[in-house]
């Protein structure tokens, strides 16, 4: 394997990490819809951290290694339409992903607040925050953008 083969393999593995994070957050989006107590909400935190790590490593790896490949591999250029499209989509996905995280952290923060106040029972307010429709919409949009990146990477329009 050449150095570029290794970079390509790590680029693809980064894409797997990114998509794994997206899938993980879909499972959590569904799981927290029935979560109305601070304890149960906070119990999700370690899983959220794994998702954040997967998305962070995946997003960083795909963009850095992808740009490296665009410069290094013969036949491709950074200004190729499909590569520019991938970079633009990556920026959009990152921006939407950050907003999704903010939307869902409201529930986690509320759960911490309730626990600190000694309230351990069901909370309608917490349930409403965990069921954020804005968060679902944002996560749906970021998932669609990530899917578009995959389609762009496979079809390479204009290459």
């Amino acid at each position, binding site marked *: 394997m050449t150095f570029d083969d290794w970079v390509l393999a790590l680029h693809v593995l980064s894409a797997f990490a990114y*998509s*794994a994070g997206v899938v993980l957050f879909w499972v959590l989006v569904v799981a927290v819809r029935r979560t109305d107590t601070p304890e149960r909400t906070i119990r999700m935190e370690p899983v959220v951290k*794994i998702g954040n790590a997967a998305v962070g490593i995946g997003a960083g790896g795909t963009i850095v290694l992808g740009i490296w490949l665009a410069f290094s591999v013969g036949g491709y250029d950074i200004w190729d339409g499909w590569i520019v499209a991938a970079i633009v989509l990556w920026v959009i996905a990152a921006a939407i992903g950050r907003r999704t995280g903010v939307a869902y952290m409201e529930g986690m923060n509320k759960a911490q607040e309730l626990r600190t106040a000694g309230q351990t029972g069901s909370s309608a307010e917490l349930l409403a925050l965990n069921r954020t429709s804005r968060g679902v919409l944002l996560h749906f949009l970021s998932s669609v953008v990530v899917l578009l990146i995959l389609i762009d990477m496979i079809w*390479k329009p204009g290459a």
Partner: protein
Amino acid sequence: MSVLATVRPDSWNFPLFLHVLGAMILVGGLVTGASALAFARGEARLLRLGYWSLLAVSLPGWVIMRIGAQWIYSKEHWDDVPEKVRPGWLDIGVLIADAGGLILLVSLIAGGVGVYRLREGKGSGFLKVTLVLSLVLLAAYLVAAWAMAGKPD
């Protein structure tokens, strides 16, 4: 280098997309399932979440990945290539995909028993087996993804 820049025929793209999408769903389900099982510390709700992630996400992902794999395999006419000259990355991928499917099935059966025992108020030992198997699977599928992408000799 020329292999990296090769543009494949358009008719191969959709089967490849299906294969990669399925693999990503499979790995996503494994990461979710393993995380939930690992951090559950005996809590029934998280243990069930981990098991259902494997059943409702990883298993369909594996099926999509395998269908896509077989489709692209036939499109690329690997059946016509003698086994001796078939590239190593292909053998790694096929072996891990199929053996992994079997291990996934075993982990789901163990997990199913574990979830049933959990409902009966018994221990979560079977779900620990599921956790270990899902971590093994995760490592194996990452090796497969590396082999498929890097195509080692």
